[in-house]
């Protein structure tokens, strides 16, 4: 469905991604795991068209989207739920959702999608008149995901959904994600909670310093020490050895 091939991405002069390739298959739940500044968010932003690679290509459903602008990519059916929620703080919750259906194909399905969002997150219906900044952290994250759904996406990218949220709420969010996936939307999520990611996803990529260092199905990645090594660059056993 989505093919990322050998991309290099720079933040001004700082190279954030090196020769990264990644495949997303239709209908799957894919995790992208990595530490701070490993390049996860950069990769999502590049797929969304906020950044453009200096090398390599990105293909979505057979169409080259490497050079498209963000709004064109949204129209093709890729939506991103940004890190830190990125809701519009001074607008009402409902307006936040409505603005999610801005792109052409989504406007027609606005009411239908709104109903879906309220099914996934019933709490939002009661909050719809409230200014978004007055919502709790968990509700804001739900709003952000709901807003993403309003774009009527085929592929949904989620950036650090669980950041700063209590475990109970994270459970709820992942439950909603599973439901969303049941409706046929493909999901690519970025997460730093390794164990959780591997449990939830079908497959995962591990990104380290802007490079893909490990990838595979959840079963393959269950060897925990291996993941830990990729994540920390060292395992606990090795630490004690070195000292």
């Amino acid at each position: 469905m989505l093919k990322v091939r050998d991309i290099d991405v720079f933040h001004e002069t700082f190279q954030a991604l090196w020769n990264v390739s990644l495949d997303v298959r239709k209908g799957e739940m894919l995790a992208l795991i990595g530490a701070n500044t490993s390049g996860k968010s950069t990769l999502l932003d590049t797929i969304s068209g906020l950044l453009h690679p200096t090398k390599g290509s990105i293909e979505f459903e057979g169409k080259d989207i490497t050079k498209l602008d963000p709004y064109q990519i949204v129209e093709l059916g890729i939506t991103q739920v940004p890190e830190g929620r990125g809701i519009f703080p001074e607008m009402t919750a409902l307006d936040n959702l409505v603005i999610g259906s801005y792109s052409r194909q989504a406007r027609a399905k606005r009411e239908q999608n709104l109903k879906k969002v309220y099914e996934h997150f019933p709490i939002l219906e009661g909050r719809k008149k409230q200014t978004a900044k007055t919502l709790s952290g968990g509700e804001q994250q739900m709003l952000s995901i709901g807003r993403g759904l309003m774009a009527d996406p085929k592929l949904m990218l989620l950036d650090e959904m669980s950041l700063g949220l209590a475990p109970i709420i994270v459970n709820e969010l992942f439950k909603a994600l599973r439901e969303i996936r049941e409706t046929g939307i493909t999901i690519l999520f970025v997460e730093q909670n390794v164990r959780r990611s591997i449990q939830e996803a079908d497959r995962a990529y591990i990104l380290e310093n802007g490079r893909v260092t490990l990838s595979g199905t959840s079963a393959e990645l269950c060897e925990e020490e291996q993941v830990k090594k990729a994540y920390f660059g060292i395992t606990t056993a090795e630490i004690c050895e070195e000292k």
Partner: protein
Amino acid sequence: MTDVGTLVSPIIMGILLGGLYALIALGLSMVFGVMRLINLAHGDLVILGSYIAFACMTYLGMDPILSLVIAIPVLFGIGFFIQQFLMSRAFAISAEAPLIIAFGIALIIQNTNQIMWTPLSRGLTTAYSLSSFHLGSYQFPLSYLLNFIAAVVVMLALREFLRRTYLGKAITAASQDRRAAQLMGINTKMIYGFAFAIAMICAAIAGIFLGMTFPFTPTSGIQFLIIAFGVVIIGGLGSIFGTFLGGIILGLVQTLTGFFFGPATQMLFIYVIVLVILAIRPKGLLGR
């Protein structure tokens, strides 16, 4: 000597005048709120609106308010052009480039006004703009009341536009979080063009009502730019209600200082107050 009764008149005048000032500031506030650009040409664009009405009145015999049908599309087009072809590129060059370009636009408009309509002081004089109305035992120019009504109407219309339409919501969204707006499928470049153009509609309306209230010359722009800026720093940028309040405060400052110290000092007081507010609250009195 100055008992409370004599103050009623300047206070009401000030509030009514404040409507006009808010109207002048509305476009400046919007362009800043959405694009983070202080449009140094705003005053001159407002005055361009006044001149368009003046031309319609002189050559076509149109009523100034009716001439909005010409002034609005012209300024809408100019606004869209400035944003799409000049400012959007300027932002990519450096922080100072948009300012310098806005300054250049200001001078071009100023000079064009001068070439087309000479440096003479002009006014939009109609039968009703000269008449007055009574409120109790006090008498006020009708044009001040019209200003106030126009300001209220434009502000309500703008508010409803921003709240109810997709375009309006997209503008609001882009001003609050550009990145997130892009991710929602909003073509922010285009939206910026529309935001600038809509701000210029406000400028056109402001220019026409200004012309009915005060005489203007091609160089009046800077005076009204500073007033608009004063309104905005009092009221906070990007807030319609704040802009209205800021306008009324400045209007009151002007009429009250005029009342106490004579008309020659009014503008000087406004400038000093703008500077003092900047010194105390650099982000504006009601600013976020």
